[in-house]
């Protein structure tokens, strides 16, 4: 019974002496292998080289500060209620007199945790945030041997202080956000030239 039109008749005749030394077949196979030396590679050497992410890449969350270095988050809970994976939890506290340089609003997140085992990097927290306090950066969560290492606390998520550590701050902002924030000394440099 013939099932398809593509069936091929297999040649089952015994091999000749020339065919038995496989020379032609080896040359045929090696030529395919060697030709790949001269083609473009599809892989990269990962830890040394890194791919550029697309502009809309959604990576690890970052808790933002304003230009004075005050935490923007007011613990309004909108990211937590928007989160489909229920990865975000927080606890709010009132800003005491004398803490105005630390927190932007009268209420702030005393605790803020993202469970990276749960997070699906959908970016809904960024969309829900009314204070521009959380955004998804262009880096991803580093690998870890234990599960506990994936519970990211506020210290892990907060962006470096823009005044005390401007280098790290700009690095953490990423290319996407850097375009929006001008270099602190850019105008001075231009005038100097």
């Amino acid at each position: 019974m013939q099932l398809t039109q593509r069936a091929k008749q297999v040649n089952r005749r015994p091999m000749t002496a020339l065919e038995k030394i496989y020379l032609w077949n080896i040359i045929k196979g090696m030529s395919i292998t060697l030709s790949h030396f001269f083609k473009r590679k599809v892989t990269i050497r990962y830890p040394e080289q890194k791919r550029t992410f697309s502009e809309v890449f959604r990576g690890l969350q970052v808790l933002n500060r304003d230009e004075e270095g005050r935490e923007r988050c007011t613990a309004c809970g909108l990211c937590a209620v928007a989160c489909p994976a229920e990865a975000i939890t927080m606890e709010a506290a009132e800003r005491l007199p004398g803490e105005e340089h630390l927190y932007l609003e009268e209420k702030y997140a005393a605790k803020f945790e993202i469970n990276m085992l749960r997070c699906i990097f959908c970016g809904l927290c960024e969309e829900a945030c009314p204070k521009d306090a959380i955004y998804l950066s262009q880096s991803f969560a580093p690998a870890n041997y234990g599960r506990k290492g994936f519970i990211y606390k506020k210290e892990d998520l907060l962006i470096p202080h823009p005044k005390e550590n401007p280098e790290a701050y700009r690095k953490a902002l990423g290319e996407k956000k850097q375009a929006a924030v001008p270099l602190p000394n850019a105008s001075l440099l231009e005038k100097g030239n």
Partner: protein
Amino acid sequence: MPDTPKLYKVTIDNITTEVEPGTTILMAARKIGGDVAPPAMCFYSKLKGSGGKCRTCLVRVAKGSAVDPRPMPKLVASCRTNVMDGMLVESMTNPDVLEARNAVVEFLLINHPLDCPVCDQAGECDLQDLSYEHGKEGTRYEFKRRTFEQEDIGPYIKLHMTRCILCYRCTYVADQLTDKRVHGILDRGDQSEISTYISKAIDNDFSGNMIDVCPVGALTDKTFRFKNRVWFTKPVNAHRDCATCCGKVILWNRGDEVLRVTARKDEWGEVQSYDGKPGWICNTCRFDKKHLNDWVIEGLTNIKRHSVIGQGKYPGLVMPNETITEVMGGRDPKLMMDIHSISDVNDRDINLSAIPGPATSETFTPNP
């Protein structure tokens, strides 16, 4: 002469109902129910004399009465206008009324700070609902909004005058529920503000009901301040024997902690009535009974389906029978990770319901 008083026939949005003479259009519309009832920010049916200030309940009277069928020349505030026999009212069917309502919302929001991310009322705020329904996304107001200092009204109530829309409801509560009113409206017009004279504390036993009647977050519970967002707490109906009030309340729980106690509300956002009497609750029930043992739990409060408070709550949920321990021969399953061993949130050693005010940085610093 018939014994029963003659009922007035009134038609609101093409729905006819019969009400007693002396009923306002708003109450007649509420009798019909649903979307026909105009929104109300200042009117509170359980407070005498309230209403007529916010103008959100504007309706058009297309026909004055059966005797005098002329329409009323302007939109009228339905909370202060009584029905006449044969009256024809247009509420949500008239585009003029909806446009007027949008304009009123814009006016109410002129001085409102829109600090909903910080405000404890967010999620159950009448102004939030109203502006979501009728408001515009942007604002045309370019001037500085009026600001006030935060004020403590008594030991339990925080007043954010910036959020106030001057509905006067709280002053009526103080007038009608407590024996001595010590706060009111100072100044006039744009400058008017709610305040106590020389910050005199309010310590009447029913003063806490001001929090419940406030349609915005101007008066908030200091014992609940910043402790949690409303929609993350779980509302359950509960009661206790109270000598001064009805003792029927809603507990807003986080786990086993009672974070807040409020009076029960009916479908119009007003305090529920029992046998014709409004169920106001006293300050002892509201502020001092923050333990589950103080209360008899009745069950999950019925929350409107579209309210954010309903998220994550499933009334009538039947949990399937847990079979893991049975299958495992009585042993508990081995957890890959116990979240409480690493997480700082919901620390069992920090009892938020026990601290009188909002948590601060001192609450969370570990004691040596």
